[in-house]
């Protein structure tokens, strides 16, 4: 038997809950609010902190928000299956009165989810980084694409000139066409400056497995490779680890080429206080920050259009890292790379964008 006190307590709780419910229904403080955000970003599953791809997009959004005085919000899905929920949530903007001006999907694997949502919300502007979505069916989606093979050719050219063992390596994240663009440009560039150079290509099969990246790099270095281009997300950080360790006992210098963001500082003994020497030779810069910044600018200035926005060497969407505080490349190498860059921009040479050997 419940005591009288108990019954009284239950009645009080019921009255309290009912009162709160009535208040919510009458005044609704949690209903749709004015939308403080202009842009919503759904990041790739690797999440922020990869020091390259997602972080680059984030930096571009921060730059744009400061420049144009706008706000942006973002989410970090944990799995591919979560993408559609986040994108649809932003498109429905149930908690806000006004919709977002732009929703950005980061990463090629969001394409299916984005197409589902974009078909249901034809007036919502979308952008996707790293994937082509057909503008005839989805005129509200801008595809932000990069000629990664052009940037990779530049760092490949540097590798071809800087190698002392005539043997270079490539560690990719996954064996997929997007990563093949990096590998193809890199090997082509190395052959451009050093015809017939030996090369090795391997994949970690994961974007987060630093241990796999390190083991693969250990193997390549012990096989006589002295420069590795790591295009493997966080797995690539293991390549830096390996280079630092093996460099201590190697009779010739070992190098790593970073990817997407400037990563030369990661090759220093203490990356948080970068000081020479570094094992980072250069980095292939894929300026996702430029792409995100530019597409936000388009929306702010009302010049947004669906379809392909291509970022190339010519429009600054790709480049290679020079950080003379940490390492100065020989002038002859810089000159050769700048010549190649000019030739690619002028169109006198064409870089292959898929594996062209077998």
């Amino acid at each position: 038997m419940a005591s009288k006190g108990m019954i009284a307590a239950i009645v009080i709780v019921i009255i309290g809950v009912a009162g709160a419910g009535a208040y919510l229904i009458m005044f609704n403080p949690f209903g749709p609010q004015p939308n403080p955000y202009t842009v919503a970003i759904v990041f790739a599953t690797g999440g922020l902190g990869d020091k390259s791809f997602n972080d680059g997009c984030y930096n571009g959004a921060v730059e744009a928000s400061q420049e144009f005085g706008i706000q942006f919000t973002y989410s970090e899905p944990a799995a591919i299956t979560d993408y559609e929920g986040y994108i649809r949530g932003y498109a429905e903007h149930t908690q806000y009165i006004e919709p977002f001006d732009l929703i950005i999907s980061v990463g090629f694997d969001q394409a299916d989810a984005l197409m589902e949502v974009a078909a249901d919300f034809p007036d919502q502007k979308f952008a996707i980084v790293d994937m082509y979505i057909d503008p005839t069916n989805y005129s509200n989606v801008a595809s932000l694409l990069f000629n990664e093979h052009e940037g990779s050719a530049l760092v490949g050219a540097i590798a071809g000139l800087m190698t002392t063992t005539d043997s270079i390596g490539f560690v990719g994240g996954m064996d997929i066409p997007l990563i093949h663009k990096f590998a193809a440009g890199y090997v082509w560039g190395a052959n451009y400056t050093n015809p017939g150079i030996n090369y090795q290509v391997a994949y970690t099969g994961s974007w987060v497995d630093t241990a796999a990246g390190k083991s693969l790099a250990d193997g390549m270095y012990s096989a006589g490779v002295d420069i590795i281009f790591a295009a493997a997300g966080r797995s690539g950080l293991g390549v830096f680890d390996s280079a630092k360790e093996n460099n201590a006992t190697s009779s010739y210098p070992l190098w790593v080429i970073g990817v997407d963001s400037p990563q030369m500082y990661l090759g220093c003994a203490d990356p948080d206080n970068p000081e020479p020497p570094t094992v980072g030779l250069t980095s292939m810069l894929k300026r996702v920050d430029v792409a995100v910044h530019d597409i936000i600018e388009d929306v702010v200035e009302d010049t947004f259009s669906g379809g392909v926005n291509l970022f190339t060497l010519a429009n600054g969407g790709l480049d290679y890292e020079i950080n003379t505080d940490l390492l100065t490349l020989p002038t002859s190498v810089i000159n050769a790379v700048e010549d190649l860059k000019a030739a690619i921009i002028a169109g006198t040479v064409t870089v292959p964008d898929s594996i062209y050997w077998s």
Partner: protein
Amino acid sequence: MMQGLPLDLIGWVFAVTLQMATPLVLAGLGGMYSERGGVVNIGLEGMMLMGAFTAAAVTYYTLNPWLGILAAVAAGGGLAAVHAIVCVKFKGNHIVSGTGIILFGAGFTTLMLEVVWHRKGYGETITNTIPDIVIEPIQNIPLIGQAFGVISPIVIFMFVATILSWYILFKTPFGLRLRAAGEDPSTLDSAGVSVEWTRAIGVIISGCLAGLGGAYLSIGFGSAFGKNMTDGRGFIALAAMIFGNWSPFGILIAGLFFGFLDGLNYAIQIYFPALLPYANFIAMLPYLLVVVALGVIRRSIPPKGIAIPYEKERKA
């Protein structure tokens, strides 16, 4: 293109085998302690992440990797204690609790990563990791020099732990009680030994070993904590435990075998580029071989009382 001798190549594969096997064997041995006692432990992944994070964080603050290892063992054991309380004391469902442990380990370490290092995804580089032991006399011996000449103390401990586990499990009263708790708990109970405590201790030991396996990834072989850096190794460790038939040496051999397949995969990618188009197939081989081995070669026999909460005087 191959510059090194074939012997160097094989030696390197051996080295990778040890590196990749160590976290698997340690976590697999942990799983064995839990399951031999009758508690299913699918939460190894969460406990490994916990160990990996704690090792990196404590080393970051104290600059002493050995304290980091101790803390990792304690943190893994602590998380396992939660599993033990849920499964043994409150007789909860082992799989549900284990799933909770995995999700908690992944979420908590991701959150704390931001709290400790004020950044997302990847912590600061730990400069003073566990130092490798250099054994000069064997460093230049072909085949084994690469693998054993410069070796992490945790790798050595993997072998010690295997022998020790065999001794504890089969030669000590505690081992006998633990096995009884898993096979026939009512007999253990009638002998006057607490089934609950025996099982709880088994679960906690499993967390300690899994935590150590995680610590090897963050401050033994690697040099930083990254979000979800165990990358499913806790589940592979479970497979190694089942493949190894819940016995210490079986788990050691299974773990080394899985590690060897990793090494083989890398070696093929690097040295035999002609096989590169099949890289994904090669990466799949370990799982395929396990299924074949389990299904065709022999059946694994789990402890009889596994996943059944013990209740006194229950009618069978």
